[in-house]
């Protein structure tokens, strides 16, 4: 239980960082999407329990705080996990940095295309900038997440 509460707190922190810190790191008007990138890394590292929790909580908070209709992000994030799981099962034999970068780029483009369609925004090159920015931040996040899971920082809390 403590473990789950701690995880929800971490997710809440990531969502807050996405809304407050990330816009300040904008280059050419775009900033990294910490929520989407974290979700993709969790799915690719095959921590499916955490990935589902992340998709539900982060999607819920993003829908609550954002300008879009409630529910869009929850559904989109959940479908991302299922898509990544399918890709891992069918096509990806080994998860390495290159795979993570490629998957992050592809899913950022899909997410951008999907949101642009909903808010009637014409497609533009900022989507490409965002996917590159996300891919770079994914490299850093990959090492952070790997460190957290290897050291079992979150799991040990339950045993205390």
């Amino acid at each position: 239980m403590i473990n789950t509460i701690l995880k929800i707190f971490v997710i809440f922190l990531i969502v807050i960082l996405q809304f407050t810190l990330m816009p300040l790191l904008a280059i050419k008007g775009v900033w990294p999407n910490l929520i989407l990138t974290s979700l993709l890394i969790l799915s690719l590292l095959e921590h499916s329990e955490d990935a589902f929790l992340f998709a539900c909580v982060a999607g819920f908070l993003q829908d609550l705080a954002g300008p879009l209709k409630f529910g869009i992000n929850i559904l989109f994030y959940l479908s991302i996990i299922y898509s990544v799981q399918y890709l891992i099962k069918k096509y990806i034999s080994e998860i390495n940095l290159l795979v993570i970068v490629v998957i992050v780029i592809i899913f950022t483009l899909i997410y951008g295309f999907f949101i642009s369609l909903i808010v009637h925004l014409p497609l533009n090159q900022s989507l490409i900038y965002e996917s590159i920015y996300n891919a770079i931040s994914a490299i850093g996040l990959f090492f952070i997440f790997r460190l957290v899971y290897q050291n079992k920082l979150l799991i040990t809390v339950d045993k205390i």
Partner: protein
Amino acid sequence: MPSKIKISRRNKIVLFFVVIAIVGLFLPINITSRPRNYFWQTVKPVGWVFRSSVGRVFPFVKDIFNLRRIVKQNTNLINENLELQSKLAKTSEVEYENEILKKELGFAKTKDLTQTTPAAIIGQSSGYLKSLVIDKGENDGIVKGSAVISQGYLVGTISEVRKNNSDVTLITDVNSLIPVILQNSRGTGLMRGGISGLVVEDIPLNITIQKGENILTSGLGGQIPQGILIGTVNDLTSKEGEIFQKVNVTSPVDFSRLEVLFVVKTND
């Protein structure tokens, strides 16, 4: 005998959120207004800390790579400043003369019908829509549609008001539509944001547009008072055969570096 279907705890949680999401899609958008208000109230201190730390350091780091441009810009601004100071002196004289003439003719002193409320930016909820969340809301007398200015220039309008905070749609957003007037040629039009920058459309053909003339709010419709500066005409983009003219507008405001905003409240 039918076997009992077992649903794991994880699937139950996922199912619960999927149902919430599907129900949410059919509900009106303003139903989340109250929780949204509380969310942004919670986030407010964090937003303030990041704005006053990272928000000041990161642009400075970016500027280091643009030193040559900044030095050039600085020289231009010094020259422009001197020019404006001489213009200001002349304008003050005209204003004084104007007031005397008004008194002679028995006109009542013009009252300023607008008030401004300073507001700090808490954060940005979407990277796709050019919008901000500010720390002033219904409790501070903010009304939907009010103009938001920064450094004397119009930067956006209030798109959603909650109890303690509001959403600002920037004029660069694709959904922004502002009625404007061209200061010298007196042509009116509608200004839109978007990926190709700020564009004023629907200017009648009989208007002779001058490059560099100021674009101001026209005050036609809505809560935006007239006379707020937006930018200057950059170039004419309409083609031959079109029934209206179209111009590109340049705003001197750097929309990625907005700090303190002012919400204009009309006292009518």
